[in-house]
């Protein structure tokens, strides 16, 4: 019996055209516009997560060796939150917003109506393959669009799982997953979309925007950059007093009534944002640190101490760290470490395990600003510390790169320094005395500026990202400003001047012929 190799159907331009055609027909038929449909899809997403948590975590483990709890906390729980928020708030979001009207259009009333854009394309990234695929989809559903999702091929287990789950749980006449790599993505990008939402890197973002330009398709680009952390001296001696009740003390495995623990809070927060977020492979991970020459040794000690507490003496064996996603990125990161001017600067870590694609949390001190590691987004477990004389010099270091990052962080107690930071550093988002937390807050728009991206989402901003805000103006026939029409006269000019000047008094004067 001859074995037949089943060839998967090639997804080319024709296939892409067919998909868009089908979705457009669904959209035009009004399927996605109904409130009930949107609610049903969001509820189905929640159900999908409830019933498939182990499978999702397993796929993330396959793709990234992501610790189960990171999978839960940063991917599944955050997505559940998005769904729940949309279900709760959608009816408010959908309501038209009343707008005031002024004298120039008197009498009139106006409102701004949110309507779906139509058929949208969501292209997601490999580092949070579940969240970054479905979080934009939640916004697109809430806004009433038909959707094609193209998950990243660099996280194949998750992509494949998403294709299966979306087909089983969501309305496939309106929401589809297309798996594939460069050629499939290119086929999709040739089509006319009503919006493209892309998460990834700047190089591909340029390709996406250029493709969108051909059809005048608006885009949202969630990119990255080198997110700096400025650490001012003295903050690490902060004591964080935490009330711990029985059954709780995870550190010392004791039962205690009240325990006051002294934590090196700033360091822990930086570690959580760096190695605790997919082992540094996150767009908002702290990329590098800037601190004063005097303070650097203290900071380094604190890091060494806390890293051991988190990941043990052999971090390559810790189950709580993601691996490097694939050998390409492993080679890329190795190259950053092996550069001559940098290899001697490693002060912590540096161990690598090529077979298992693991790199230990690595800290470098005083790398040259023109090294490779300081000129591309690291996206890995390497943390350079740059030293300056005065902490205020950090702003120049950040701004000299000429690009604006997705996030910037400052640890300090100095109020003036905080104000200077907010005034001088431009980034998608800033956090003082913590890292990455702003991503979980739905009242904050999440997005970049300049090279770190354009457009925002999360919470209601997701709904807005996939909506068209249509202005609607209602006028009556009762008053007609005859001044608008020819024949044009000096008198009409005077009245127009008064009308557009907005002053009631001058209008009266003009009407009476007194001006």
């Amino acid at each position, binding site marked *: 019996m001859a074995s037949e190799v089943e060839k998967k159907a090639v997804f080319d331009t024709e296939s892409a055209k067919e998909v868009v055609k089908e979705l457009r027909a669904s959209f035009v038929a009004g399927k996605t516009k109904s409130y009930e449909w949107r609610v049903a899809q969001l509820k189905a997403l929640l159900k999908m997560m409830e019933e498939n948590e182990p499978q999702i975590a397993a796929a993330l483990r396959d793709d990234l060796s992501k610790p189960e709890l990171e999978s839960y906390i940063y991917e599944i729980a955050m997505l559940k939150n998005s769904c729940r928020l949309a279900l709760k708030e959608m009816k408010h979001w959908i309501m038209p917003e009343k707008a005031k009207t002024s004298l120039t259009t008197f009498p009139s009333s106006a409102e701004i109506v949110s309507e779906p854009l139509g058929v949208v394309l969501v292209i997601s990234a490999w580092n949070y393959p579940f969240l970054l695929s479905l979080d934009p989809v939640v916004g697109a559903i809430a806004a009433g669009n038909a959707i094609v999702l193209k998950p990243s091929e660099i996280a194949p287990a998750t992509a494949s799982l998403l294709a299966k789950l979306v087909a089983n749980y969501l309305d496939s006449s309106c929401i589809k997953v297309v798996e594939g790599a460069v050629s499939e993505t290119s086929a999709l990008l040739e089509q006319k979309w009503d919006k493209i939402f892309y998460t990834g890197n700047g190089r591909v973002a340029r390709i996406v925007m250029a493709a969108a330009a051909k059809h005048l398709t608006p885009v949202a680009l969630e990119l990255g950059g080198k997110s700096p952390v400025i650490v001012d001296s003295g903050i690490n001696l902060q004591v964080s007093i935490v009330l711990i009740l029985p059954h709780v003390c995870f550190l010392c495995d004791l039962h205690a009534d009240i325990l006051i623990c002294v934590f090196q809070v700033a360091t822990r927060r930086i570690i959580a944002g760096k190695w605790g977020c997919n082992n540094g492979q996150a767009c908002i991970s702290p990329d590098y640190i800037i601190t004063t020459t005097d303070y650097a040794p203290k900071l380094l000690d604190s890091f060494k101490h806390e890293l051991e507490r988190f990941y043990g003496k052999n971090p390559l064996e810790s189950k709580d760290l993601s691996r490097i996603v694939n050998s390409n990125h492993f080679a890329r990161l190795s190259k950053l470490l092996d550069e001559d001017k940098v290899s001697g600067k490693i002060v912590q870590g540096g161990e690598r395990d090529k077979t298992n694609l693991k790199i230990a949390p690595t800290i470098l001190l005083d790398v040259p600003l023109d090294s490779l590691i300081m000129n591309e987004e690291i996206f890995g477990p390497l943390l350079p510390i740059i030293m300056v004389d005065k902490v205020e010099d950090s702003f120049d270091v950040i701004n000299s790169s000429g690009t604006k990052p997705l996030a910037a962080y400052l640890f300090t107690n100095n109020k003036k320094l905080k104000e200077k930071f907010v005034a001088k550093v431009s980034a998608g988002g800033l956090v003082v005395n913590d890292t990455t937390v702003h991503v979980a807050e739905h009242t904050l728009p999440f997005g970049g500026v300049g090279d770190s991206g354009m457009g925002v989402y999360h919470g209601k901003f997701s709904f807005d990202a996939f909506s068209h805000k249509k202005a609607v103006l209602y006028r009556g026939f009762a008053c007609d400003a005859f001044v608008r029409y020819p*024949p044009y006269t000096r008198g009409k000019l005077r009245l127009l001047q008064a009308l557009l000047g907005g002053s009631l008094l001058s209008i009266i004067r003009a009407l009476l012929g007194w001006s």
Partner: protein
Amino acid sequence: MDKFMIDLETDLEVMRECCRSGKTKEASWRRSQLKGLQTFLKENEVEILRALREDLGKHYVEAFRDEVGLIKKSLNLALKDLQKWMSSREAKLPMIALLSHAELVPEPLGLVLVISPWNFPLALSLEPLLGAIAAGNAVVLKPSEMAPACSSLLFNTLPNYLDNETIKVIEGGPAVGEQLLLKKWDKIFFTGSARVGRIVMSAAAKHLTPVTLELGGKCPAVLDSLSWSWDKEVAVNRIIGAKYGSCAGQACISVDYLLVEKAFSSAVVELMKVLIKKMYRDNPLESQSVGRIVNKHHFLRLKNLLTDKMVKDSIVYGGSMDEDSLFIEPTILVDPPRDSTIMTEEIFGPLLPIITLDKIEDSIDFINARPKPLAIYAFTKNEAFRRRMVSQTSSGAVVFNDAIIQYAADTIPFGGIGESGIGNYHGKFSFDTFSHYKAVVRRSFLTDFWFRFPPWNNYKLELFETAYNYDYFGMLLVILGLKRSRRRFDVR
């Protein structure tokens, strides 16, 4: 061209340095520039109106109504509300984020490029310019070479009123535009045709520059049967004003074509003829109550629209053209073939096709079968029809019982969708379009979610789940050990 590029780069570097140093961020700088614009308008009103008449044959009242007056209004608003627009907005945080504080801080994007068109050469240059200034940006303005008197006025006179280190006017045509598009901008604001809009966005893509594109389209007017003769007259006046009275129909928001019910159409045409005569008198060219066509190229383009025999036969009023004075009289056509060029391309001129339908409700399908326009104008008192018009069509804006006037409203966004554009502006929307809203979170060291950190265990997972649900009571139960994790998390 090389010298141009070298000089340009030097100038742009100076402008970027001003942005970096925070010069343009200062409220005082913004105010002084906006006031400078006000003074420019005040002291040069006569020259401006003259330039508009020279470029487009606009009567000075039309020029004031559509350009000078509107910019004055926008400047007044920007100066009045600047402080409010510039201030940070607090963002609510949930209780669990105790002792944290979050706000949205607007900041300028940096160095922006504004490219404006020829039909409202003053208004469409200064409206985006003032928005960019209010938002604290340095600006390069390239007005259209097809309105040379205005372009020259802006190039020669405007700099006397503004800070030349941070705001520049550059004159030129497509070649200059191309050179400008090679540079890296923090934002490009383009008003013009969809064809050039694509070129602008493609160039912007190379630098990941965000764009606002104010394009056009065929803006339909839908005229329902109205019982009161007063209403009918007002409606028709507004339609013909919006067609012929604003730059002779060469406006992105002009009424492009009109949809009426068959039964009603001849009455409409008759009423139109009467009101056109009343408004524009016997010699609209002499009274300048209808502007002229901008140049020979567009004149011939419009002339060609009428060469098709079937289109020509559908003319019921007007149709005469004078190539020397580039004047076309207000023209009405009834039911030209739907696939003729006049019905498939944006007309941008004083020719009004009227398409008759069996029922007025058919207008919705008619509109939806075509690209999304910048505006839809529906003249109707029928509530149900209005609701359908809003919910079943898509356009930049919908205006009921009037046309063009939405441009003057600064509390609603002005912009397109699909082929009619990306982004919007006017009023505070102008400020927003040239700003980046930076999220700023301040946390305290005193409180911490200690369960954020590894080493991981199921207990922390349970705490996270309750935290994400803002289930404070549940959190307490977990802490007290009264709630066990129902999940045995062990992925092998």
